[in-house]
């Protein structure tokens, strides 16, 4: 009937472009999507990047490795601790440094706490994008605040922590912090059910997310999608299990995976990962070895001639750092492999034939952070 209408020329319709961003309430930073629409239906989209470009990789070439740690905070600013960790792991690999057991365990605890904080924000913003105006977001912020408070007490910062050091961490855990983390585990184990009540059982939430933005396994692998987005498509790939680092091999935990790879699975995998992270923290904080995790000397590291690549499992996927040394104090070249960049690149595939509301839903479920995409 539509073609009949078009042929009869009674009603002529035309496709139009709509600029979603760089200033838009739900593009998670300064992302600019050029959407091609036929009425409500999206026919395709072009992604324009670079509004947050700060030249991080070039900056690294004129900094020592220790000086570059604060810059990694500004990559994926929701998960600064994990960025710190990935970078110091790469640096330690290049320098051939060993870290003592306590530092490893502290790193795991901190990284998993930050993963929970990051997933909470991801879930909250996702629900906000679906139009549950601010309520789930505030619930998530309430719980994230507890983690941020712990970090604040630990290292004095609330967002950009600059906590990990090459060869250890900046500060040791005090007794109070250990108690606070244990209390948080108890608190959060109950609160996870709140999200199940508020969102997982909600008819409208289910209708909006099920079968929306289905990311097939093959497509996900071809685009280099990693993290919860890949696991939601049914690929059981997690660097914490498959290429253990920083002592992850010592802990028992499962890798939650989805089946369909739709927005619902991406949400559910994040929620399940919060529970798994709580398990890891509980084990790590329970078996915290003795020792001094702080680094006493050696802020300056002369880089050997050679290169190292280290990747670790960030909340959003694989974050990789490639460092090439040329015998000086500064890296000759530093390359960052951010997970969100690959995760965002599938959006052009996913939005075809979706409604505008679904575009927002898909973008929210991919859970991108522009800081590490533009770097």
């Amino acid at each position, binding site marked *: 009937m539509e073609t009949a209408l078009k042929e009869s020329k009674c009603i002529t319709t035309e496709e*139009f472009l*709509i600029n979603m961003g760089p200033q*838009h*309430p*739900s593009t998670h930073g300064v992302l600019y999507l050029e959407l091609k629409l036929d*009425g*409500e239906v999206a026919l395709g989209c072009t992604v324009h990047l670079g509004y947050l470009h700060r030249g991080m990789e070039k900056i690294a070439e004129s900094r020592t490795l220790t000086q570059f740690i604060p810059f990694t905070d500004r990559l994926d600013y929701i998960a600064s601790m994990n960025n710190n960790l990935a970078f110091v792991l790469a640096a330690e690999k290049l320098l051939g440094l060993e870290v003592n057991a306590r530092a490893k365990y502290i790193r795991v605890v901190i990284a998993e706490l930050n993963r929970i904080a990051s997933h909470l924000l991801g879930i909250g913003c996702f*629900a*906000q*994008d*679906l*139009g*549950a*105006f*601010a*309520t789930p977001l*505030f*619930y998530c912020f*309430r719980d994230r605040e507890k983690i941020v408070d712990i970090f604040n007490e630990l290292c004095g910062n609330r967002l950009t922590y600059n906590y990990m050091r090459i060869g250890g961490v900046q500060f040791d855990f005090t007794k109070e912090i250990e108690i606070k983390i244990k209390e948080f585990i108890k608190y959060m184990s109950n609160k996870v059910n709140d999200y199940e009540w*508020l969102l997982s059982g*909600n008819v*409208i*939430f289910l*209708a*909006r997310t099920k079968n929306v933005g289905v990311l097939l396994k093959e497509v996900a692998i071809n685009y280099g999608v990693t993290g919860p987005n890949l696991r939601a498509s049914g690929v059981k790939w997690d660097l914490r299990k498959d290429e253990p680092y920083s002592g992850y091999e010592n802990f028992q935990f499962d890798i939650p995976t989805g089946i369909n790879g739709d927005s619902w699975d991406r949400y559910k995998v994040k929620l399940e990962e919060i529970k798994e992270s709580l398990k890891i923290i509980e084990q790590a904080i329970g078996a915290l070895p003795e020792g001094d995790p702080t680094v006493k000397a050696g802020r300056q590291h002369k880089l050997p001639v050679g290169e190292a690549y280290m990747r670790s499992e960030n909340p959003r996927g694989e974050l990789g750092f490639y460092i090439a040394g040329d015998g000086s104090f500064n890296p000759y070249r530093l390359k960052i492999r951010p997970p969100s960049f690959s995760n965002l690149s599938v959006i052009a595939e996913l939005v075809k034939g979706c*409604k*505008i*509301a*679904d*575009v*927002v839903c898909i973008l929210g479920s991919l859970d991108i952070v522009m800081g590490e995409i533009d770097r």
Partner: protein
Amino acid sequence: MVKFLDIIFNTGIGVALLGFISASAMFLIWWERKVSAWIQNRFGPMRVGWHGLLQPIADAVKLLLKENISPASADKLVWWLAPFFAVVPAVMAFICMPFDKNLIARDLNTGVLFMIAITSICVFGIFMAGWGSNNKYSLLSAMRAVAQIISYEIPLTLSVLTVLMFANSLSMQDIVRAQSKYWFIVYPNLTIAFIIYIISATAEVNRAPFDISEAESELVAGFHTEYSGMKFAMFFIGEYTNFFIISAIAATLFLGGWQGPFLPPVVWFLLKTYAIVFLLMWVRWTFPRVRVDQLMAFAWKVLTPIAFVNLLIAGLFLIKTR
């Protein structure tokens, strides 16, 4: 002379109603912000007045002082008229609002019909705003709003029709009096009608979870994206006045209107209205937004058939009992 007095009397009623409407819109804005804050672990406005009670007044002053910006490519006449179309019908609907036994501007014998007809005009305001702004987001929002409001008008009217069959009158006061023994909501047919009415009315005034026409995570601010200052405020007042009206109609048609023991009738009327207002606010701050195709499917495939069947059963029931 008599005519002159009549004009003065009517103007007095008009001024009183306008005063009530502005006060009620402002109170509702404050109340909504408070309710949302309580649901979300916040305080809400606290600074201006007792618990931020004067916040809407401060906001209104701010909006009055703001510059009136209009886009260069806007369709000027339509753009200027749209806010009036959003407010005026909402105000006119108060003519048939039964606050008390005698406290009603005009007890028209076609009161319900008038109410439904006049509140439907609000869609013109939204469409004119979307069209006149010459903005793609606004246009999309306007298209959504028209489709949505026209679709939900049908189940809404059908559910009201069920009430009319029980009350045997179109006058608002007669409907209230017909509930002197039992509130209409106790009849099973009318319980279903009440639920249908509440859902459709929520969609009718563009409130979450049916706020697809101003879905801010998709369409920025929808039809009022380009509006600022007092023109924006007029949309806001219109929206909250409509919100009050649908709650008041629900209270009148289903919950016995101003009837109730001990307390004065006006208090009963406002209590019932604000109870429904609170219910709708609770829903708004809990549920995600439905998608546009789901919204339309729900109206045509679920609500309308149920409303028709409900109407039929109500008719059979009435034939049998009489």
